[in-house]
């Protein structure tokens, strides 16, 4: 079972839900938690560990100046503006390259090859018995988040229970995190912004044909609008986490409510079973 935790709006509590869900299942099965919010990964803050690190590379074009005739075909082809062919040289903008390889194909002189270019890293660790934590880190200034997300997810490919924490929004990194998962938990809050962005995220999961459930976080008890929305969109509300001082206090210390407060571990485990049931997956 692969579950992705997403939200639309930022700061709704994706990492809280992902970390607690993972922790709550450890009694019965090993769990892999994958932090795919690669611009600001934070799951490692919940779990102390000494990770193994692996660099992630993309490829960028390299021009053989002996073969290049400055014809400009590669520059005209590149829709990302990563290659500029000038009168006497070719400029490569590494950060703009999407590694599509098109420039190599269109070059009539076969003057372009690919060379590796580091954009970030993936950390792999075992912070608790049964828990594997994989975190993707995108280098500052780089933009190819989906490449790091793919690497992080590939490392967890053979694991049985995988919980993926995505970045907020509904852009490419979120789609990449959602790809090939069995279920999506969308975390929201009962504010106009929360509902607006939830609607956008639901649009994405519906488009991907991904089974979806909602967690309402920081609930003040009057969540009618979100509940009405979910009823209309035919999406179950899986859990409601109240706006509560004790919960906030546990969270602020980097703690997990499923570990420190009674009842939550059972609730999160129960939510997992509900995801299995809706997702129609065995484990």
């Amino acid at each position, binding site marked *: 079972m692969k579950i992705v935790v997403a939200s639309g709006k930022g700061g709704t509590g994706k990492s809280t839900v992902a970390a607690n869900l993972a922790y709550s299942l450890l009694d019965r099965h090993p769990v892999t938690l994958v932090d795919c919010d690669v611009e600001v990964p934070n799951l490692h803050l919940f779990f102390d560990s000494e990770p193994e690190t692996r660099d992630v590379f993309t490829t960028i074009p390299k021009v053989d100046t002996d073969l290049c005739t400055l014809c*400009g075909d590669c*520059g*005209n082809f*590149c*829709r*990302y*503006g*990563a*290659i*500029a*062919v*000038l*009168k*006497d*040289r070719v*400029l490569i*903008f590494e950060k*703009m390259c999407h590694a599509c390889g098109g420039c190599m194909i269109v070059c009539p002189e076969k003057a372009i090859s690919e060379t590796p270019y580091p954009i970030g890293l993936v950390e792999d660790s075992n912070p608790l018995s049964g828990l594997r934590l994989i975190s993707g880190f995108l280098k500052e200034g780089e933009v190819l988040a989906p490449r790091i997300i793919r690497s992080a997810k590939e490392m967890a490919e053979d694991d049985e229970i995988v919980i993926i924490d995505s970045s907020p929004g509904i852009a490419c990194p979120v789609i990449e995190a959602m790809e090939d998962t069995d279920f999506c938990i969308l975390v929201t809050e009962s504010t106009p912004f929360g509902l607006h962005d939830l609607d956008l995220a639901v649009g994405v999961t519906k488009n991907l044909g991904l089974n979806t459930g909602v967690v309402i976080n920081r609930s003040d008890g009057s969540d009618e609008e979100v509940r009405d929305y979910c009823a209309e969109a035919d999406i179950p509300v899986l859990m409601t986490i109240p706006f509560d001082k004790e919960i906030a206090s546990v969270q602020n210390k980097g703690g997990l409510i499923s570990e420190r407060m009674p009842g939550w571990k059972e609730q999160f485990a129960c939510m997992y079973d509900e995801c299995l049931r809706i997702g129609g997956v065995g484990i």
Partner: protein
Amino acid sequence: MKICVTSKGAGTDSLVEERFGRAPYFVFVDSGSGKSDTIENPLLNESGGVGPRIVQLIIKEGADVVITGQLGGNATTTLQASGVKVFSYGDNGTVADAVAKFEEGKLRQMI
């Protein structure tokens, strides 16, 4: 000498556009004959990477000088390497006025 001015419209009577890569039009003026040609920006609706691509377009058209308002980072890098000289114009006037001021030596050189 061929001068390229970023502009809001076609021809030398249109207003100068401050933005470089996102300028709707590029007016090319031949300083000798005074004749001009206008090219519509083909990349106006692209999401990114416009700067270096516009520089390539301008080079292809044979411009020696660019007059515009502001430059982005990648456009700056590309123009610096291209050997094209770039001058700044911020008077909210026409392309003809920008070219006249350039020829009088009143524009500040950026690159």
